[in-house]
């Protein structure tokens, strides 16, 4: 009985933190929401000033930017991460598998500043050869992919490690090939673990701040192709928060709040959709 109380309290506590964060954002954003209202989505540009009447506060291109970077990076990182986990668990010889895993674990701790820096001085010039300048949506997607890859790979691999031996032994005994075993036995059994890993990766991607500031170009325009510069909502807050006063500051918090709302919608709909499946 005590155990149940304890663990449920912990769970409620964990949840209450996110409510506090949303309450904080809402409080700081309130002046912007009440005075600007739909202008946040409808204004044609983002040139904020300290008062509502003198500036424009359209954040729509940045919502698209955030979604594009997140969707793109998850689309690449999920299959690559799962394949890496498959490689490490089932294809690589023991020594290589352990080394590979440690190598990827290293990536999980490298600061976002270092990734951003590497993207700025190495990756962006590379992309610039195809389409100058190199700081654009593609660069952002690739950098964020590299950042969330360890999360997805490590969680998925841990799930693979707990697939019951009986399933595998039985499939092998039936004469199934290695990939067939993986595709038809391992992957379906690990669905929930893969979902957890991808969800953790996706939420990391959407919240990434420092790296995207350095590689995405930060121009407030809806991207027409992956070679266009974008600005995400998080980069927007990071870039302008230090100098923003008055309504500008409130509008920045409002953009953070809107990001949270979009995420909440996405999380709930993903869970509902997976439940239906």
């Amino acid at each position, binding site marked *: 009985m005590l155990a149940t109380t304890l663990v449920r309290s912990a769970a409620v506590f964990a949840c*209450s933190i996110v409510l506090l964060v949303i309450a904080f954002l809402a409080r700081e954003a309130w002046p912007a929401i009440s005075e600007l209202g739909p202008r946040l989505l409808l204004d044609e540009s983002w*040139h*904020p000033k300290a008062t509502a009447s003198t500036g424009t506060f359209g954040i729509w291109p940045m919502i698209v930017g955030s979604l594009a970077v997140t969707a793109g990076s998850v689309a690449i990182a999920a299959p690559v991460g799962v394949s890496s986990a498959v490689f490490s668990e089932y294809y690589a010889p023991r020594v290589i598998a352990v080394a590979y895993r440690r190598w990827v674990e290293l990536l999980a701790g490298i600061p976002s500043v270092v990734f951003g820096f590497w993207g*700025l001085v190495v990756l962006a010039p590379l992309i610039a050869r195809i389409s100058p300048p190199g700081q654009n949506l593609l660069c952002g997607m690739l950098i964020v992919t590299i950042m969330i890859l360890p999360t997805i790979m490590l969680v998925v691999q841990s799930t693979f490690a707990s697939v019951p031996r009986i399933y595998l032994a039985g499939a092998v005994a039936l004469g199934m090939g290695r990939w067939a075993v993986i595709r038809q036995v391992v992957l379906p059994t690990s669905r929930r673990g893969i979902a957890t890993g991808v969800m953790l990766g996706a939420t990391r991607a959407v919240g990434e701040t420092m790296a995207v500031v350095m590689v995405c170009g*930060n121009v*407030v325009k809806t991207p027409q192709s992956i070679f266009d510069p974008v600005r995400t909502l998080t980069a927007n807050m990071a870039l*302008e928060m230090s100098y923003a006063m008055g309504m500008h500051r409130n509008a920045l918090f409002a953009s953070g709040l809107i990001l949270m709302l979009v995420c909440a919608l996405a999380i709930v709909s993903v869970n509902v959709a997976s439940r239906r499946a």
Partner: protein
Amino acid sequence: MNFSYALMLMVSVFSLCGCSPSSSLENTGLSTTQRVDSPATSGLSGKIEVTGSSTIAPLMTEIAKRFESFHPGVRVNVQMGGSSRGITDARQGLADVGMVSRDLKSDEADLKHFEIARDGVCMIVHADNPIGELNRDQVMGIYTRAITNWEDVGGTDAKIVVVNKAEGRSTLEIFLDYFKLKAEQVQADIVIGDNEQGVKTVSTSPAAIGYVSVGTAQYDKDLGTPIKLLSIDGVDASVATVADRTFPISRTLNLVTKDEPTGLVKQFIDFATSADVHDLVRELAFVPLEN
């Protein structure tokens, strides 16, 4: 049952408000006859909180260290958060001194400000770019996309990559002011935040043009970074020309306090604006103010 747990936990979290707030103005043992620049141990002790601009923070950290070495009983904590935080924290008393890397606006006249350095703003291009100077019209044309190719201003055939700064930043406002541009007119390819980001963007992009702090650009160029400082309207851009006021585009770096500073804070501000720290100012590529 779950709701009551939630309530219980929220209450316990908020009841932690009993923690002692950090008192920032403990001034004890202050002797008014003590000279600030005496290296002998002094009786000064206390804590000073300084928050604000990330441009000034490194400079203030070094000044604070030197001040602490003269007065071992004093601790000066320098934090970043942006110029706007410097202003609001000074006003609300959350900090003793605010750092603001721009000239104060008219609605900030209630604060007392003290200038500690000057910083110029210059245009930079990649070192391989043959262009060495531009005039005002050309810069305006480039930034409004009336001119899109380096050929049109005498360079090689390459599409110009325009680098602009993010909204609200003082470097942006000075730039717009000097070149008589409005923020809406500028069409950039890349928008950057800090000066170093600007330098690294331009140094890795041969067709780029941007504007950053003169001191930062010159320091990096001397270290070998492949950038070039452009002359504007015939005036070379360098720390020297900012110092003798011939270079037209510049801003002051300020410290602000809510009221006229007294006691420990006054000693510190006097020290920070004195000639004793001019070498520290130069170290970080700013221009000291010769009073």
